[in-house]
């Protein structure tokens, strides 16, 4: 924004749909961000104007952290460039006032109770059908007994009613187990320290008791987990998306903490170990035999002092139900994004806990903790034959046809050749295409049917630099730690999933040893539905401040490339 920004007022514009627009080039932008971050959720952060949103959840998060309505209103008025509508201010105050009118507390005599600071609210919610069966005897006008098993479900139901309860009932310590961070370096390793934002995240989590830490891929969420464990010094259950991710956790924990291999158990489809620190996959927990969840007992197998949920945005629905029963344990959620494509953000809030820490990606990148990435969209023009085939294809086949066009192959090769020094990941969604690519690039393929052992072998080879190019399927979307990958080439995706794009970019965002630039290419077929989906996926990253550069395939191929076919 220009020079008259100072004259015209603050950096913030308050919209009537409760979004806040922050002009980041304004001199006061940084101060304003600090002031509004506790209560407003960052929705989009493109290059000039960041969008924050005031939501009930966000305002309640702020209340939970001790901010009051007066402070929120003051911040809005102070930084707002234009008059803030009265109705919006009233609404903010009223919404914030709803948090904590009800409290869940431990009564020395009656155990878990729901206590009202406002008697009418208690009367209102007690009448609600949604709470049927959760509340016990009325102890006095302001207190109702709660069955301890209903603690989670009650919080969920109260949130839905718009009267979120403050959970003051505390946590059990769980079975103690010594865990320390090995910052001095272990087995001859180099000394290291927790990064400042990781420390802030752990402190914020620990002060809050339970909650979610939002950090971008590559920002070291595992270390946040490890530090939280060192804080808790208790037996820990870690829930991860798949076995490979679980092993990465194990490797990282052995390297960065005082824990030894023997103290960490793996509970997966292959192995069923229960140790002081147990890493379980979502899949094994949600597998059923005869309609019953058979591995549910894991939650009660030990007196866990801490439960860590990796990739909270993917947490399957049944785990929410188990989590409702775990309200007396400390819970840490880790994720790169709170956006759930199923919209269950409210359940994450009430069952795992409020968001405790969040940092915009670009900020962390500027601090040098994640590799800066350059995103490029390469548009290939289909051959006439391919265009004809595409034009006559059935609607449901079209995306596959456009995404797997053979014309993409030479472009992918040219891109790989462009980075002769770098480790390259080629990511796609269609197995046939991956095989084609594997042959064409003479690179190994990791797909869903690849055994865990084979995967590990290939990933190790990739990490060591033995393999320079790896073709991976959707399994690459999540939790694979390949820090040396500096180039990712996406050839096809899952329609328009925003989350997928972010996860894939995350693959190349791990900091590089020499601080190299990371590259993310996405190869799309021009004038097809592929371009549309690509645009949808990219919107998320553009909103995170990653501007795409669009180039034509001919520029990549160069004039001298022999034509394909």
């Amino acid at each position, binding site marked *: *924004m*220009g020079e008259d920004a100072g004259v*015209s007022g603050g950096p913030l*514009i*308050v*919209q*009537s*749909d409760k*979004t806040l*627009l922050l*002009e980041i080039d304004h001199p006061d932008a940084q101060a304003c961000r600090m002031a509004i971050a506790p209560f407003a959720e960052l929705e*989009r952060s*493109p*290059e*000039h*104007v960041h*969008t924050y949103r005031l939501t009930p959840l966000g305002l309640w998060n702020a209340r939970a952290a001790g901010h009051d309505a007066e402070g929120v209103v003051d911040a809005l*008025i102070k930084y*707002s*460039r*234009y*008059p*803030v*509508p*009265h*109705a*919006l*201010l*009233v609404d903010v105050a009223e919404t914030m006032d709803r948090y904590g009118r009800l409290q869940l507390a431990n009564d020395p005599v009656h155990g878990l109770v729901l206590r009202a600071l406002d008697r009418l609210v208690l009367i209102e919610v007690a009448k609600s059908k949604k709470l049927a069966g959760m509340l016990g005897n009325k102890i006095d006008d302001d207190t109702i007994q709660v069955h301890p098993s209903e603690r989670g479900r009650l919080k969920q139901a109260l949130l839905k009613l718009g009267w979120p309860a403050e959970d003051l009932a505390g946590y059990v310590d769980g079975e103690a187990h010594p865990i320390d961070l090995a910052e001095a370096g272990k087995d001859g390793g180099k000394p290291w320290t927790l990064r400042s934002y990781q420390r802030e995240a752990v402190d914020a989590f620990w002060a809050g008791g339970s909650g979610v830490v939002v950090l971008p891929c590559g920002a070291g969420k595992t270390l946040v987990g490890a530090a939280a464990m060192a804080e808790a010094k208790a037996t820990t259950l870690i829930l991860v998306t798949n076995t490979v991710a679980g092993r990465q956790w194990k490797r990282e924990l052995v390297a960065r903490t005082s824990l030894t291999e023997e103290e960490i158990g793996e509970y997966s489809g292959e192995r069923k170990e229960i140790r002081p620190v147990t890493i379980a996959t979502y899949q094994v927990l949600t597998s059923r035999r005869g309609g019953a969840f058979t591995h549910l007992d894991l939650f009660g197998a030990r007196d866990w002092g801490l439960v860590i949920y990796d990739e909270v945005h993917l947490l399957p629905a049944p785990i929410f139900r188990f989590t409702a029963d775990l309200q007396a344990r400390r819970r840490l959620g880790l994720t790169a994004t709170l956006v759930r494509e199923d919209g269950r953000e409210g359940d994450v809030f009430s069952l795992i806990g409020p968001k405790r820490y969040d940092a915009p990606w670009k900020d962390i990148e500027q601090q040098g903790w994640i590799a800066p990435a350059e995103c490029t969209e390469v548009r290939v023009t289909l051959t006439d034959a391919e265009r004809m085939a595409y034009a006559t294809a059935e609607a449901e086949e079209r995306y596959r046809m456009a995404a797997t066009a053979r014309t993409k192959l030479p472009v992918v090769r040219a891109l790989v050749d462009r980075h002769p020094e770098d480790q390259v990941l080629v990511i796609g969604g269609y197995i046939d295409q991956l095989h084609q690519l594997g042959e064409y690039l003479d690179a190994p393929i990791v797909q869903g049917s690849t055994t865990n052992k084979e995967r590990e072998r290939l990933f190790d080879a990739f990490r060591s630099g033995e393999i320079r190019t790896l073709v991976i399927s959707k399994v690459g979307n999540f939790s694979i730690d390949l820090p040396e990958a500096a180039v990712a080439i996406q050839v096809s995706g899952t329609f328009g999933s925003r989350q997928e794009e972010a996860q894939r970019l995350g693959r190349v965002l791990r900091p590089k040893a020499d601080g190299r630039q990371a590259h993310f290419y996405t190869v799309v077929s021009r*004038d097809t539905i592929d*371009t*549309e989906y690509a645009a949808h996926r*990219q*919107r998320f990253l*553009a*909103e995170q401040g*990653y*501007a*795409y*550069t*669009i180039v034509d395939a001919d520029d990549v191929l160069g004039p001298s490339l022999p034509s394909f076919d």
Partner: protein
Amino acid sequence: MTTSLADHLRTLPDESLAALLQLRPDLVVPVPADVSALAIRAQSRVSVARALDGLDQFTLQILDAARLTRDPQGGGTTVEAVLAMATAGSHPPAPAAVRGAVDRLRALFLLYGPEHDLHVVGGVEEVAPYPAGLGRPATELDPRAAALCADPAKLRRTLLAAPPSARAILDRLAAGPPIGTVPAGALEAPATGTEDALPPDLVNGGAPTGSPIRWLVEHRLLVRMSGGKGGAGTVELPREVGLLLRRDSGPLGPLRTSPPVVATPAREAKAVDSAGAGQTMEVVRHTEALLESLSEEPAPVLRSGGVGVRDLRRMARNLGLDDGIAALLFEVAYAAGLVGELDLTGSSHARYGGDQQILPTAGYEVWRAASLAQRWEQLARAWLTMTRQAGLVGQRDDRDRPISVLSAEAERAGAPAARRSVLAVLADLPPATAPTPDEVLELLDWRAPRRARGRETAHREVLAEAAQLGVTGLGALTSYGRLLLAELTDADERAEDPLGLRSDAESGEPSTAVRALDALLPAPVDHFLVQADLTVVVPGPPDPALAAELEVVAEHESAGGASVHRVTTASVRRALDAGYSADDLHSLFRRRSRTPVPQGLTYLVDDVARKHGGLRVGSAGGYVRSDDEALLTEVQSDKRLEPLAFRRIAPTVLVTPYQVQRMLTALREAGYAPVPEDASGSAVLSRPKTRRAPARVPAAGRGLDPLAAPRLPLPRLLGVVEQIRRGEAAARAARRAPAVVRGSRAATGPAPAHTHSDALAVLQQAVRDKALVWVGYVDAHGATASRLVRPVSIGAGYLRAEDERTEMLHTFALHRITAAVLED
């Protein structure tokens, strides 16, 4: 007394009379004939009520003191007596304040006469029957009660002996009004069961048990008045008992010489104006959105008047507004002349059976072109002066029907006065004081209790609406709101002055309120910021040219202080359709954007532009096609074919707006040999047609003997035999129905009851036996018919039965069945 007021008035000098008329202007409409007419009018119920309505609580209490201290015989009182009574309580007011109140009352001629012989004008009794909320003296009510009251010691003892529930009733009546209704039977029947500890709700007549009241009436502390209908009655607290109960607070109750003090701390004046100004932007924007939606889809007017709840709700939902706010904006827009009815009688647009629609008026266009502050002023003025109570919309009327927006039920003549008095309370406070609604109501109650009481809901609504419209901000009156109010009040005063000039609203100059608001509102901006996610942010209200451009090239996403738009494929296509070229769009974004235009946007525009118009659609009367391009060139350049206005749309296709037949003829005349094609592209062959009569069967050809039967081949014959046999079998199966079933109704008129019940019995038996029954019935056309069926069930007024021949299930209405006979 009338005469004495008239006499008194006659003795006054002209200035004093003029002062009276100025204070009570209603006395001169119409101008009274003489002084006695003036005196009569000044004592009339209506005029006195009007004068009392304007009085504050303290002055009314002093008037009550004058009434209570009157000499029962002569009717006069003195200032001393009034002073004595007013200062009898535990917190006596300053005598000067009492004298001031007496002077005010005398100026209004509610009291008249010299200080030692003050009279209360007649009419006061009628308007306010219970002075200071006290009942009549016991002597006027009941001799036994009078006897009790005459013995103060006994009265005190009786009072102390009252049970707590009875005492609660007494305290309530003592606070006034002194009468209460009791439900039927409460006084007669002795209490059954335990005594209810709660005092009965006298005002609502909902006494749960009569016992405390019975006790009070029996002990003469309450006097029972005339019985109402059904035994329900009224009780009155004698004045003496009331005074005794008020011995702590004084006979007039608590006195407050000045209005209650607002305890809420004052806001920052800047914050108040800022919140209000923000709200004015919102209200103008919402009103515009509402009117735009009405312009796209006008709201039908109900037959009973107004716009239906469902339509209102739909609009509110579309705009993301609360129903109540939408109703308020609708009413204000109507009052401001921005929407109006369009009569549709006889028009093809009439829908929903309604013949009127609500849609924006021509005034809306003018309004839309005005500045934000002016637009707001128009709305705010309309709101202040409209005789509508928008808060009633959505509630139920007396007949329990919902009150709809713009309907006659929401009309309230007193609405502008209510708004004026509420806002006057705020205006009289120091600037930026933000009293709570309760404090405002308390102030209103002190300032003009007779006007405020019973209107609490309406007054609260006024406060809410004022906040909604941005007249107030953070609960305090805004600076521009104060100016607007002052302008309206000035205009009123000028209107009362026959020589006053008309308000300057018509002079074209923006009013002071508009100027004050303008200074608070953001200035229009003429640029935006474009970002890589294809959002376009206008960091302030866009100037009209920019707004018009954005409306075409981008989708609106969020509004408020700034506006956010998004450029999408669809929006770019729309812009191209509207006549922009890709270069126009590029230059528009370059020109307007304060930030570099992201590459993604450039690509998007180019991509869409490249595909735009890739297909061209048009219509033609006919075409000429040929694989021989040279031939087509010849046809196109043929002078004789010029009237056909050929256009070449492809190397091998010419089109003409004229019909095929004309083209064929012209081409043939010019010596070409065209062949017409049908819709599927195949050639249509045409031969010259010769006229023929319709075909007919030739008379000959039937054989030699026209009368001889035709001879059939054997298989045909066998087929005929088979057909006959089948017919025979069917006839056997379809035996005729018995006579009683056949046409029984036609023969005897309506089936007699016993026949019908017999038929039912037969049918029920048949259901049990699964037997075949002949059912006679009257079909839907009134014809009688019969059918052989096997009943399956009877129930709910219907017989379900199976016809074995057709294998269909039939349902007969029982009342249509005339007869039923078992098949033997």
